[in-house]
């Protein structure tokens, strides 16, 4: 059972998302919060698996709440950022500080549920195309040096990760065992100091290790 905390300053959005999530047999609504400060408190108290976090809120906004939850909690949940519009700098910043992905509020319910389930599994990058588009204007023109300490295999895995392949698909592609791929992923995340695939891929785009275009 995956528990979900829903954060949005608009009550009607919270209620709608709660109804959508609550109707699923494998998901449950842990609670709701109307701003970032409350979100941080609820996340600590309810220990949800996933937080759906609106970025733009009065007071403590979603960006700051994401940062606090990820750095201050011992076992932080996965965070999916909610946004009205795609090209929102806040969203990108939230991904940089460690949100695992983002959801448009206009997404279909199936997409929202799918995203929640995938982010719990954590072995696939959510919306690779959208992340590439967000990262494109901020990317460095030439590969930087940071990837030097990745092995060639790890770099290859990172590149495939950025295209949105799951661990199993990467294993297939590279003729490796799933376990080996998982080890590579774990190692490269550790080397990059990345919380998850999203952060690693954004980092790769920003430093120019992967060219978004």
């Amino acid at each position, binding site marked *: 059972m995956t528990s979900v905390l829903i954060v949005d300053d*608009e009550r*009607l*959005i919270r*209620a*709608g*998302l*709660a*109804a*959508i999530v609550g*109707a699923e047999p494998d998901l449950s609504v842990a609670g709701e919060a109307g701003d970032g400060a409350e979100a941080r408190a609820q996340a600590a108290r309810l220990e949800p698996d996933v937080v759906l976090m609106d970025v733009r809120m009065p007071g403590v906004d979603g960006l700051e709440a994401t940062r606090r939850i990820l750095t201050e909690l011992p076992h932080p949940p996965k965070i999916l950022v909610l946004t*009205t*519009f795609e090209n929102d700098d806040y969203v990108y910043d939230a991904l940089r500080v460690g949100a695992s992905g983002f959801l448009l*509020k*206009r997404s*279909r*319910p199936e997409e929202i549920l799918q995203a929640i389930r995938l982010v719990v599994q954590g072995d696939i990058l959510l919306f690779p195309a959208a992340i590439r588009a967000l990262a494109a204007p901020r990317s460095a023109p030439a590969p930087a040096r940071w990837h030097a300490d990745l092995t060639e295999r790890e770099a290859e895995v990172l590149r495939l990760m950025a295209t949105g392949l799951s661990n199993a698909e990467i294993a297939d592609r590279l003729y490796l065992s799933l376990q080996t791929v998982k080890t590579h992923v774990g190692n490269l995340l550790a080397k990059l100091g990345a919380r998850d695939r999203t952060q690693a891929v954004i980092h790769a785009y920003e430093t120019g290790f992967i060219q978004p275009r």
Partner: protein
Amino acid sequence: MRPLRPLFAALTWRRWTFLLLGGLLALPLTIIAGAAASASTLLVGSEPYATLVAFALILAVLTGIGLLPMVRKLEGAIAVELLGAPQVPGTNPRWPARLRASGWFVAHLAGGAVACGITIAVPSLVVYGLLFPMFEGEVAAEFMTNGIMAAVRVAALLLVPATLYGIVLAGHLTARAAEWALGPSASERVEAAERRASVQAERTRLARELHDSVGHALSIVTVQSAAAERVLDRDPEFARQAMKAIEESARTALEDLDHVLGLLREEQTARTPQRTLHDLDDLLANTGLDVSVEREGDLARLPSAVSREAYRIVQEGLTNVAKHAGHVPVELRLVARQGALDLELCNPMGARTHGRGTGGRGLAGLGERVEVLAGRFSAGALDGRWRLCATIPLPKGTA
């Protein structure tokens, strides 16, 4: 062949045509000048003196013609078309700009006369030089060495490229000068830049307004209807409430859309001139609100940017009063003091409260724009009264 390219450029020859036109305009004047010179010979007597008087007279007349707004407009239009400069003819009605335009007109005619002269003289000079000497005995025989004849022919041949590149250069310089003489003055350029900036700021504001209002409402509509559809059988009560919420959100969105589209239409029909505090009385007369105004200092001499902003603050403030407090008495205070303009708008809160609506966003927009002018802005409730304050600093030497 790069060096040859300007010779075949249409622009080069359009520019030359521009100069020739000046010469054509000068032609009748030259005839009149000749007549005037002979007339003043009769009056003044001595010939060189008379020519000078005639010349001065013509110059004065030309300068006068050049000062006519019509002539400036015409010169501007022709210059834009034929010279490719200035990009936009200036329209500053102040004297320095008009004098520049007048000087330009005189120079155009003078330069045009020279250009016409060159156009007529150079071909004949070249032919003459190549056939030199045309007639026996034209030059004393002792000078007629082969060397001299060759030199004259080379010179005649060199005259062709020299004239052609001279034409290119003259066109280039004329276009440069047109930019200075007919183009917008520094203050006009500043104003244009200011206008562009304010259009940009307005667009940003509208984009944000659409984002906040319509985007917000449609998000609610999407999420609520998706949820209602999913739980319809299990939780009809939720579905019913969702329908209600959807209806209200959609209605709000339409209202906001109406508002923003209204602003866009308004911008199109009444782009210029922008209103300032000069138009304050009209505004107050049209609000239908009971506004008591207190004015201090010389409001008429405020810089236009400040005056414009103050007008918009008052406008937005009064709109909010009408929207949120209804028909209540309003106190408006405008103080132009040393270094700053203070603006204060007060009203009792009324039955409806200042909530989160278009009003709040409008206020946020005002705050941002005041900030751009390095001022301070605040709005809020105090003791049952709504108070909106703005202080906009003035540049040194005004008010």
